C-alpha cells in the first residue's frame, strides 16, 4: 500500500455546488497528481504538483483548481460542479522524475446530478 488516502470515496451532489476532493499521502513524495477516468478516455491528467504551492495544469484542467499547502495534502476543487464532471477521480503520487512509477489512491466516484 503506497500510503495514499482519498476522501470522500463516493459523493453525490447537485449541479452548481462547490466540491472539494482530498488526497492525503504519508510517503512524503514530492509529486502529486489528479486524474479523472471516463469510459473511452482512460485516465486524463487534470492538475499536478511538484512541491508545496507549486502546481501546473494537465490536459483537462478547465473547471478545476488545486491547492497544496502541505507536502502531504493535495486538494482538487470544482468551484461550480457540472454534470460533465461526473467521473471517477484518482490521486497519484511519485517520489521523483524518471522511471519511478506513480502510485494511485483508490479513487473517488463523483456524481453530479
Amino acid at each position: 500500500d503506497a500510503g495514499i488516502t482519498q476522501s470522500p470515496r463516493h459523493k453525490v451532489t447537485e449541479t452548481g455546488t462547490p466540491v472539494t476532493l482530498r488526497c492525503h499521502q504519508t510517503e512524503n513524495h514530492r509529486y502529486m497528481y489528479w486524474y479523472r477516468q471516463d469510459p473511452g478516455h482512460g485516465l486524463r491528467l487534470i492538475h499536478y504538483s511538484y512541491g508545496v504551492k507549486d502546481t501546473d495544469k494537465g490536459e483537462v484542467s478547465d473547471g478545476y483548481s488545486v491547492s497544496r499547502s502541505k507536502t502531504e495534502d493535495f486538494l482538487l476543487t470544482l468551484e461550480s460542479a457540472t454534470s460533465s464532471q461526473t467521473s471517477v477521480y484518482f490521486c497519484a503520487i511519485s517520489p521523483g522524475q524518471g522511471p519511478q512509477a506513480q502510485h494511485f489512491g483508490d479513487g473517488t466516484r463523483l456524481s453530479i446530478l
Partner: protein
Amino acid sequence: AQTVTQSQPEMSVQEAETVTLSCTYDTSENNYYLFWYKQPPSRQMILVIRQEAYKQQNATENRFSVNFQKAAKSFSLKISDSQLGDTAMYFCAFMKHGTNFGNEKLTFGTGTRLTIIP
C-alpha cells in the same frame, strides 16, 4: 504531444492460455518510459511492468513480459499462464524522460478490458 493507442477495447481468453495486449504510441522523443497498469474490478490502479526506452532488453515480471519495438513505437504486454485474477482493465502509459518539470506526467491509452474465462 504524445498519444497512446490501445486498439483492442475488449479481449477474453481461457484460463492458463497466453494473451497479448497491444499498445502503440506516437512521440518525437527519443528517451522515455512505458508502463502497463492493471485496474481490477476493485478500481485500484496497479503497476504491472515498466520499460525504459534506452534499454533494448524487454522487461519481464514473472508471468508478465513486454515486446518493446522502439522503431515501430509498439509496446505489447504478454500474459502467460493466465489466471482468473488477471481479469481487469489494462492501461498502457507513456512518460517523457528528462529533468524539466512536466516530464513526469503520464499519458494513458483508453484501456483493454481483459476477461479470463474459467
